[in-house]
């Protein structure tokens, strides 16, 4: 097996990761989207050369295979070629777009974006503004859309420099000043001491005009003093919005990775903390992961390196159970291929589950229309037996509802243990069926539960966006919806089936949800589907 890691990226984060992995003795191949590549790759070593292959201007075309054995096709100057890798780390740069249009401005000699400030003061126009040392500079930030500390920091640093070095007057117009970054509040105070003026808006917005020559005037009412002001800046600097950009979006598509609403190659799913993705062996770091300060790109690099080393060493918790497709039954409909959140299904002559990539969520088993997929310890129609801990009713005793609660092993099962431990009041008679993921609860599970004496069935899934398999809870919700529709059609009380979302630390909610359903069931009476009804 190769110990090579393919790093896709071209910035300092990539450099740090490569350096770390080389120091750890791993083979590294870097595919940078642009050429030339500027990666110093220094590490404190003994001077022996270790193989680092740097491919500048190489774009990823496709990827096959799974963790330990990825086969990636790349393209460079019209040539296509292939690399195999045990891991892939995506650390490519994000894109910044200036927000001119948000403020109804067009870029001109005195309307620039925050990234252009440094260069601007080397140009002739820049020198002219700088010279009288009384120029007015206005920074527009987060007035229409919420800004970010990364942008605020840039604005404050530039502002401070211009204020201190050139004696310019800086105004920062914003809604919420984003100081939730390391040292930013102190920096904010420093800029104020240097003479910067902050004007914050909450209820009103400044009126920004730009004349034909490109000159800007800004009228506003100060919300504290309620006085009207007008600014005629010599230079207007607009903020930027950082987003994933086209290449990262493409990479997510190629590697089958879930994206966040801004297009970054990682969802907000807390189980991916901090550099993991929905696929084993594919790691995401730095600028490709989310908007964060350059310092955190370096922090991510350490994490990415550690994840890669752990994967190569096989120390990461291995899949104990993996699903398998029974060849004779498979109709090759590819449902499993489409629904697998971890991309563990390879398309050979027939679909095949690759053991090392399978996370054992069993979503495919519940989805497979041919019932062709199996996994050890997973039963499509579980024999619950006489699971009620009460004796078969003689008809004389008072009715006590029997609940079957399907619990996701990662959230609800733990919440149940917590509820028990804390001594919260739970239903009198219930049974918990632990499933690897709520997405593995099939219609057959639900019907079997009712067949086997349940008066009510409660399905507890992770919260949306918190599912380890990303969409398992949504599959569960969908199946419950279908079942409820069926129940309504046949006149069976749909209130007997309930789905709720829960987290592992919600013991109280486990108690509330289960006793809540128990209460409903007391009102409804015994289920007509019970064997002794």
């Amino acid at each position, binding site marked *: 097996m*190769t110990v*090579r890691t393919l790093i896709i990226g071209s910035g300092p984060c990539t450099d740090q990761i490569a350096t770390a992995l080389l120091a750890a003795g791993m083979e590294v191949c870097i595919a940078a989207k642009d050429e030339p590549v500027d990666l110093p790759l220094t590490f*404190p070593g*003994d001077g022996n050369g270790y193989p680092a292959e740097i491919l500048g201007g190489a774009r990823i075309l496709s990827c096959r295979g799974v963790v330990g054995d990825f086969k990636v096709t790349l393209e460079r100057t019209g040539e296509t070629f*292939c690399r195999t890798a045990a891991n892939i780390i995506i650390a490519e740069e994000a894109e910044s777009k200036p927000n001119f249009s948000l403020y109804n401005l067009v870029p001109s000699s005195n309307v620039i974006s925050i990234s252009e400030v440094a260069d601007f003061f080397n140009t002739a126009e820049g020198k002219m503004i700088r010279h009288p040392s009384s120029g007015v500079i206005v920074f527009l930030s987060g007035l229409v859309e919420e800004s970010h500390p990364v942008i605020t920091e840039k604005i404050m640093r530039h502002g401070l420099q211009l204020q201190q070095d050139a004696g310019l007057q800086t105004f920062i117009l914003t809604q919420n000043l984003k100081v939730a970054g390391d040292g930013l509040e102190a920096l904010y105070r420093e800029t104020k001491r240097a003479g910067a003026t902050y004007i914050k808006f909450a209820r009103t917005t400044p009126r920004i005009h730009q004349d034909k020559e490109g000159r800007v005037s800004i009228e506003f009412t100060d919300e504290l003093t*309620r006085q009207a002001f007008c600014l005629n800046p010599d230079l207007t600097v607009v903020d930027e919005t950082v987003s994933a950009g086209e290449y990262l979006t493409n990479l997510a598509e190629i590697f089958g990775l879930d994206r966040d609403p801004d297009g970054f190659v990682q969802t907000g799913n807390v189980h991916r903390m901090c550099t993991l993705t929905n696929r084993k062996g594919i790691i995401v770091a730095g600028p490709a992961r989310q908007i964060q300060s350059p310092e*955190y790109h370096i*922090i991510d690099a*350490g994490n990415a390196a550690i994840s890669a080393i752990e994967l190569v060493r096989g*120390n990461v918790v291995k899949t104990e159970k993996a699903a398998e497709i029974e060849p004779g039954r498979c109709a090759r409909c590819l449902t499993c291929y489409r629904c697998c959140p971890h991309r563990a299904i390879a398309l050979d002559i027939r679909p095949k589950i690759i053991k090392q990539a399978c996370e054992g969520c069993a979503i495919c088993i519940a989805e497979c229309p041919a019932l062709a997929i199996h996994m050890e310890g997973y039963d499509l129609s579980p024999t619950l037996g006489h699971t009620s801990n009460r004796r078969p009713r003689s008809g004389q005793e008072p009715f006590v509802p029997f609940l079957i609660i399907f619990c996701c092993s990662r959230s609800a099962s733990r919440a149940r243990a917590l509820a028990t431990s804390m001594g919260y009041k739970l239903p009198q008679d219930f049974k918990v069926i632990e499933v690897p993921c709520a997405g593995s609860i099939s219609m057959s599970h639900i019907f079997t539960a009712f067949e086997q004496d349940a008066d009510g069935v409660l399905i507890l899934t992770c919260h949306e966006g918190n599912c380890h398999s990303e969409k398992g809870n949504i599959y569960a919700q969908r199946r419950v919806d279908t079942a409820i529709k069926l129940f309504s059609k046949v006149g069976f009380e749909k209130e007997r089936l309930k789905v709720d979302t829960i987290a592992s630390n919600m013991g109280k909610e486990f108690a509330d949800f289960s006793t809540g359903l128990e209460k409903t069931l007391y009102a409804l009476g015994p289920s007509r589907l019970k064997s002794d009804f």
Partner: protein
Amino acid sequence: MHHIPIDYHLASGRHLWKVARSGRLQENPPAQGTWRFKLDKAAQKVLVIGGGVAGLAAAYELALLNVGVELVEKADFLGGHGIQFACKAAGKCVTCGACVVEEKLEHVVQNPKIKVSLGTTLEQVTTSRPFSVRLHRRSAYIDPQKCTGCRICFERCPLDGAVARGFSIHNVPLYAINKEKCLYFKDKSCRECEILCPEGAIKLDKKESTYTTVADAIIVAVGFHTFNPQNTPYGYNIFQNVITNLDLERMLRREGIVKRPSDHRAPQKIAFVQCVGSRDSSLNHLWCSKVCCGSALRMARRIKTRQPETEITFFYIDVQTFGRDFQNFYQGVQKDVRRVRAIPGEIFPAKQDRLRVNYYAAAVGKSLEEDFDMVVLSVGMEPAEDTKYLAGLFNLEIADSGFIRSTGHKEVPCPNGIFSTGAVLGPMGIAETIAHAGSTAFETLTYLESKTDSLKVTP
């Protein structure tokens, strides 16, 4: 195997990298990589000080890489502040990270490479490697091996709070005797729990102990301290219904819903006051605590989901960005939560056990008074009590803020083998702390490797 044209390219002043340049790259270059990191030094041990999010995450990462860890926690339970937080999902996960702390704690407790020492503090340490560390261990009055977590001691203790309970069930034991409150330690008048414990797990006369351990590297992860709002004009500790954000977190975690401490009734009107002890030059707290806007707005959202009749007002300076897709979250919040850009001046008692909050309303240009049923103070983070002591002990630099100054991420980050991570470096949330801890674990590993002969190993 094709021959790959390689030209030697001076990549750094110190050594040559073999860099494949263009050519026919049809196949992989021959594998030349060898495993340089040995990482099988089971004898290597890292001492992690602090069992909060940072300590747990760092310990776990190191253990995964086969490094032995001793995790030392001063308190009786692991998890620090993070484990007390409630899940703030409102149907949808809001990525607060509270459940991740639970997960990390479980992993740490179950990992055989990690030894957890609770109720333990540092007394002395040698200055050079390997560090010889003298630790002081408070008595474990409840034997973790015997305790089954049956709750009898907790439920039958005549005093409130003398038997403390951990937040995560992965704490072993889940209960601890609070010496400050327990009657036995006051006047030896009560041994109820000791007598009642069916396992005989409680021994109230157990002695304290001191022991020495040896470590190859040390990670300082003692976290932060929450600002005590007692001296603010908000009547904390005077009015029962003025609580902190941490109090609210714990309440939501235990009860699921919000209740007024004074009468256990659901409050109709709640005020959140932000930046209590943060962004405050009079305290010389020139930092934003980063997490309180997220914590308050997420809790407000959650309260609105479970108790929709509650009216929530949010007093703030600037709303800070948190989480992904903040724009959307914040737009959603604006429907549920009334926002007032002002920090209240004072809180007075009002009729019917309510609280009168006065603030300057810029919209009308004058001070207003408004009554609330409950006020939540979003208290900021400040350096932990032990920061100074540990900084002295380990010769770590303290920044103007009082937090430990980050050494940055250099090639050889901490030549002396002492690392700091997490909120001991400054305010940070759960996700950031976990990232910091992972990165520190990697630095520690690099350090351990640099101290062994493995760097000389070639194919």
